[in-house]
């Protein structure tokens, strides 16, 4: 077959198929029963904030730089998809946590970034919405249903004296790699490869 035709088939068939797939994903009965972000709200001081505003503040304060949401993001903090449930479905608890952070574990107080209680309430509305998403059953596992209390485990630090076994392992691992490389270069110089 002609080269150009081959490439065009490779490009066009899946690209055209993506159109109905995308429509099915959002506009038909196939679509998951996700909530409307405009209707998920949190009240604070008599004002109502919805999850659309919350999505913007969630992006602005860069929560995804440490946390994952629906599993996407960074792996420094726990996944936030079900954080609302873990915090006992309490907007106030979540907002309070964001504002003061968990400095010893690596989460800075969001107050330092200019977050006010209103923005915290907005972000809480977003987390409430995230908790209602139909994510095909993800995430699983027992600990995710810890109710109420934020993680009670104390963080630890890594000091070199505590990793001597690992250091030995690293040396062992690298001696093997080195051996392979040296053997390879040797054989190449001898012209046997």
């Amino acid at each position, binding site marked *: 077959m002609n080269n150009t035709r081959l490439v065009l088939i490779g490009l066009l068939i899946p690209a055209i198929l993506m159109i109905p797939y995308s429509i099915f994903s959002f506009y038909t009965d196939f679509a*998951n029963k996700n909530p409307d972000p405009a209707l998920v709200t949190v009240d604070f001081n008599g004002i109502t904030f919805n999850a659309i505003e919350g999505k913007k503040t969630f992006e602005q*304060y860069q929560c995804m*730089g440490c946390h994952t949401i629906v*599993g996407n993001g*960074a*792996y420094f903090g726990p996944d936030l998809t079900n954080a609302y449930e873990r915090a006992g479905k309490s907007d106030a608890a979540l907002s309070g946590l964001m504002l003061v952070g968990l400095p010893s574990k690596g989460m800075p107080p969001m107050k330092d970034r200019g977050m006010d209680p209103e923005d915290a309430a907005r972000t809480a509305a977003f987390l409430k919405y995230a908790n209602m998403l*139909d994510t095909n059953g993800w*995430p699983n596992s027992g600990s995710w249903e810890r109710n109420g209390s934020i*993680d009670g485990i104390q963080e630890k630090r890594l000091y070199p004296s505590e990793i001597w076994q690992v250091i030995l392992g690293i040396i062992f691992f690298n001696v093997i790699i080195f051996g392979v490389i040296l053997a390879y270069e040797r054989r190449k110089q001898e012209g046997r490869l």
Partner: protein
Amino acid sequence: MNEYPSRAKTRKYFLAAVLLFVLQLILGIFLSIEFMFRGEYLFSIPFDIYKSLHLNVMVLWLLLGFIGGLYYLLPPEVGRDIKYPRLIDFQFWFLMIAGIGIIISELFFTGRNWWLVEGREYLEAGRAWDILLTLGLLTVVFNVGMTIRERKKEMSSPILVLAMGAVGSILMYVPGEIWFNSLVAAEYFRWWVVHYWVEATFELIAAGAIALILLSITDVRREIIEKYLAIEVALILLTGIIGQGHHYYWIGTPQFWLFLGGLFSALEPVPLFLMVWSAYKDLKENSKPIPNNIALYMIIAASLGNLFGAGVWGFIHTLPQINFFTHGTQITASHAHFATPGTYLFLVLGMAYIAVPELSGMMNFHQFRAKTGLWLLVIGFLNMITALVIAGVVQVYLQRLQGVSFMEVQNILLPFYGWRTIAGLITLAGALLITYDFIILYHKRKLEE
């Protein structure tokens, strides 16, 4: 070489790319240290800021490397110089200034203004920067398009594939900039940027560049290389475009993606294997001596990194049954640190090692330093990947299967994070050696001028 004076302008692209790669590594080492000493921020900067810079600096140097490579490789293939040579300089400084702007925004304006910092993974740079960058990059599309339109001879297919990839990458930046109220739709289109970059358009750049380089350094028949390239490209697109589905398992999109994504992304290693195999075959058939050994090494590293990092490491967690447990763990991190540097770092370095010595008129440069640097990079990355994959398996087992809490698991993973930092330092040593080599190669010309 003097036929195409604008080629000389691309040297700074490669040097900047290598320097930014070093910056990315340093940021990565900072990140790994913060993993070990959680509350103690290095220079009072929290994790997320280093993390977003780590990613944005990478996007920047990849773009620099690809654009530089395209401008370097294009002129002889179309038989004429780049149409607007001044734009090459302008685009370079534009990218540099945008890069500095993004860094300053991250450092001082995170949380202050959504237009400056948007905090979505890979697209952390704020909306204002996104729009500015897209407009600036469209001038690259314009310049390349005009040059190709007024070509003096028929273009070969590798350069067409490369140009398609580069232009596609720039266009694929756009879907991520549309605002959606729903998190599901926003994530859906954010992956259009990220996935269609690394698994489609960048992959085209890699396939095209590798074919082009093999064409220029070996004496294998053109038709053979072009035929393989066409099959590779068709398969990359056929599997990669719907393979997107492996990002749609758990973000609130329908279950049919579990089937589509699993099926097509499981096939993604096939074209990558073909790439390695065809390169191997070409080199075996070749009877022409290859003086620029180091560029060849880099290209081989890139195709192997692509096969193992993207292909194998991707395959091990791409099936939905497995991804249900591994999604959002260090397994993903291990894959990312194998696939991206394994393919695109070595590709950019390979193009740089072809372009910079030639432009500096230094074809017989000493290759020992570069080779040592390459091996250090390989060793460093292998350590990093291994540490992360062990951490990932432990994390999946404890956190996802046994239900141990997040922070408890992190405490258990500390030794592997320590290993990862050491790996980062080895990698940094290799990168510094290669940077030093580039600076020397870069300056040789200056002295002679």
